């Protein structure tokens, strides 16, 4: 009987303790930040510990691998899901997310809290925050600047016998290429060559079909040939622009680079496949996002002084494909205040400096405008250069349709040998015209 009584008292005490603890638990707020699963996300986890320490708001993270990121997150937004309080969404989503009410408009919040968009690099504000494009309507804070760049095996480029052979063949030094023509020469030079007892290949480029890979790769060449999506004087008028002579030449060039100089089986490769090829010592050069460069530089096997970086080569103009994202508050969040608190904290210059130091690419002028910025990392100067000439894909609400059309047409031409470059771009113009007609913009 005594035992039973003791048990009852114990249970009551436990119940009381839980009740007493309940209000304290309720006060412990938690917000969820959604992003892609990649190196900078790990840096953000580290950085956000400071926010939790300062605000008492716990951070939960939902990181989705890149190939599924758009599907997963757009599904979440379209279903008005409450999973994410904060979302670092791709730049192309901004039109749809603004028009469909997925993101909270941040103008009033910025004004109240003294957050000035003029503190951020103009290209990043334009690309990551505004909709309609260039208007002072802000739906995100520039969070992660990024562009497509290149990394190369500096140790291979420095081999005396290779240098001599290259010089003899091309009458110039074996150095990071300045144009796509030079890049192809270098790639051809390395293709199939045996280095340190291993067969190596010229260049790992984007060829992925499913999400956005080949479009991001091909646009790297198109932009360097001066590609324009439409007539600057007549928006959405694409005939003669998307399928211009230069665009055809650029697309043909990209295909020739794919055919001559990629590793075997490289028919569906994006960021991860590129990293795999490069880290395993297969490729002399790799196209990839700047976001991966801090991690690559730290890599024990291929990093450090063994590698170098260069900005996307020019051809007719200097230009790079834009990556990167802004951070937005999701309209369906139940913790909007806490999410806005995070943005206010994140916008501070000191936090931005730490963000860059940890491996994130800050867009804040306090970081980028620092005279020593170019010296802070071996890829910093190229990042600055790239960000000055970035160009992005359509950011329209119908971007997914526009992107899928391009994926199909260029993959059909580049990888599947279907038709000519001109035919591929003509079909792309037709696809895009159809989309814009459905959208009522043509």
């Amino acid at each position, binding site marked *: 009987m005594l035992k039973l009584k003791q048990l009852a008292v114990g249970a009551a005490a436990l119940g009381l303790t839980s009740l007493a603890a309940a209000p304290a638990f309720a006060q412990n707020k938690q917000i969820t930040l959604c992003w892609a699963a990649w190196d900078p996300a790990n840096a953000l986890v580290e950085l956000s510990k400071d926010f939790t320490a300062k605000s008492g708001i716990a951070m939960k993270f939902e990181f989705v691998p890149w190939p599924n990121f758009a599907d997963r997150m757009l599904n979440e*937004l379209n279903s008005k899901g409450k999973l994410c309080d904060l979302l670092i969404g791709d730049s192309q989503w901004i039109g*749809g997310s603004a028009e*469909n009410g997925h993101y909270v408009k941040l103008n009033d919040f910025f004004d109240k809290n003294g957050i000035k968009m003029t503190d951020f690099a103009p290209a990043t504000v334009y690309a990551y925050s505004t909709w309609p494009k260039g208007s002072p309507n802000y739906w995100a804070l520039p969070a992660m600047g990024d562009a497509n760049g290149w990394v190369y095996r500096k140790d291979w480029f420095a081999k005396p016998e290779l240098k001599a052979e290259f010089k003899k063949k091309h009458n110039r030094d074996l150095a990071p290429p300045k144009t796509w023509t030079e890049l192809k020469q270098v790639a051809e030079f390395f293709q199939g060559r045996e280095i340190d007892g291993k067969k190596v290949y010229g260049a790992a480029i984007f060829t992925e079909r*499913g999400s956005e890979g080949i479009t991001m790769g091909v646009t790297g060449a198109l932009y360097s040939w001066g590609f324009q999506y439409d007539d600057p004087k007549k928006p959405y008028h694409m005939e003669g622009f998307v399928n211009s002579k230069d665009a055809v030449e650029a697309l043909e060039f990209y295909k020739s680079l794919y055919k001559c100089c990629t590793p075997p*089986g490289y028919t569906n490769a994006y960021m991860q496949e590129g990293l795999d090829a490069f880290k395993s010592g297969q490729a002399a050069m790799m196209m990839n996002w700047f976001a991966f460069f801090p991690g690559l530089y730290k890599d024990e096997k291929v990093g450090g002084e063994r590698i170098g970086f260069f900005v996307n080569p020019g051809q007719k103009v200097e230009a790079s494909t834009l990556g990167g994202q802004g951070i937005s508050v999701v309209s369906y969040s139940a913790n909007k205040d806490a999410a806005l608190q995070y943005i206010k904290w994140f916008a501070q210059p000191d936090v931005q400096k730490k963000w860059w130091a940890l491996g994130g690419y800050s867009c804040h002028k306090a970081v980028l405008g620092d005279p020593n910025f170019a010296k802070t990392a071996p890829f910093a100067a190229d990042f600055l250069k790239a960000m000055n000439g970035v160009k992005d894909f359509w950011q329209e609400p119908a971007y997914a349709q526009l992107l899928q059309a391009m994926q199909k047409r260029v993959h059909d031409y580049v*990888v*599947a040998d*279907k038709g000519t470059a001109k035919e591929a771009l003509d079909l792309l113009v037709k696809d895009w015209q159809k989309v814009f007609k459905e959208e009522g913009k043509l």
Partner: protein
Amino acid sequence: MNDVAKASFIERAATATPAPVARVVKGLSDRAIAWLFISPTIILLLAINIFPLVWTIQLSFTNYRANRPNAEVKNIGIDHFQSILTDPDVWAAMQATAHFVFWTILIQTILGFALAYLVDRRFRGHGFWTTVILIPMMLSPAVVGNFWAFLYQPQIGLFNYVISFFTGLDPSSFEMIGSVKLAPWAIVLVDTWMWTPYVMLICLAGLRSIPEYIYEAAEVDRASKWRQFWTITLPMALPFIMLAVLFRGIENFKMFDLVNLLTNGGPGSTTEVASITLKREAFEKWRTGYSSAFAIILFVTVFGLANIYVKALNKVKSR
């Protein structure tokens, strides 16, 4: 359970039923009780099968997009149906589907029947080998798709090394899933590897259903094994073979998982079967109305073809 035990069980159940419930049940007819038992299944069927079907039909006549929840939904009549049936890309996808369905069925039927014929011989250890042959169809398509994608890797994949061992070709000189010519066959091969055992199983059931005395009578008439095969085995197993073809045909017409994991429709759109196109329209381009119309067209096609086939099957069975 014998009759006495059964009666006592029913009696105990009746006495244990609470009085109000017993009163209600006693007032119900047999038909009402039958409805009471099947209604959960019917409700479930309506909720997860019929309702989505009706809703899909309704959406197929609208411009609805799941990613534009605030946009006005307009009725656009048969525009989507017209647009789908006149789109060369859709016909290309249908061609890819037809290629896949035709070759997988043909190869699987021949191999499946041959395997069933062998296993039916009842050799020593035939039970063990039957189980071994059945393993591929017990695996999840997700697992099969992923590990074949690895096997097909030109640099590290075992498949290329095996081919290279027998032919002397350089293993990295060809790509199964990256080549326009080989990719459709790469998928046919994996599907055949996975589903031939299923065809074998159905054919085996057919072969085992043939009475032994027919063969004994044929032996008495001195019919050769070849003659016995063409006049007894094949005609009597034919309804089962046709059934296997029907099941595999319907399944492969809708094939998604293996293709998605192996090639994702590529290279380019070489292996883009109808279900991949449908997925792209519905969940990548978010054209919900359009993809609903496409789904209806696919459903009607497979339903119509299956009906014609079932009529043929019935004719064969009644012979």
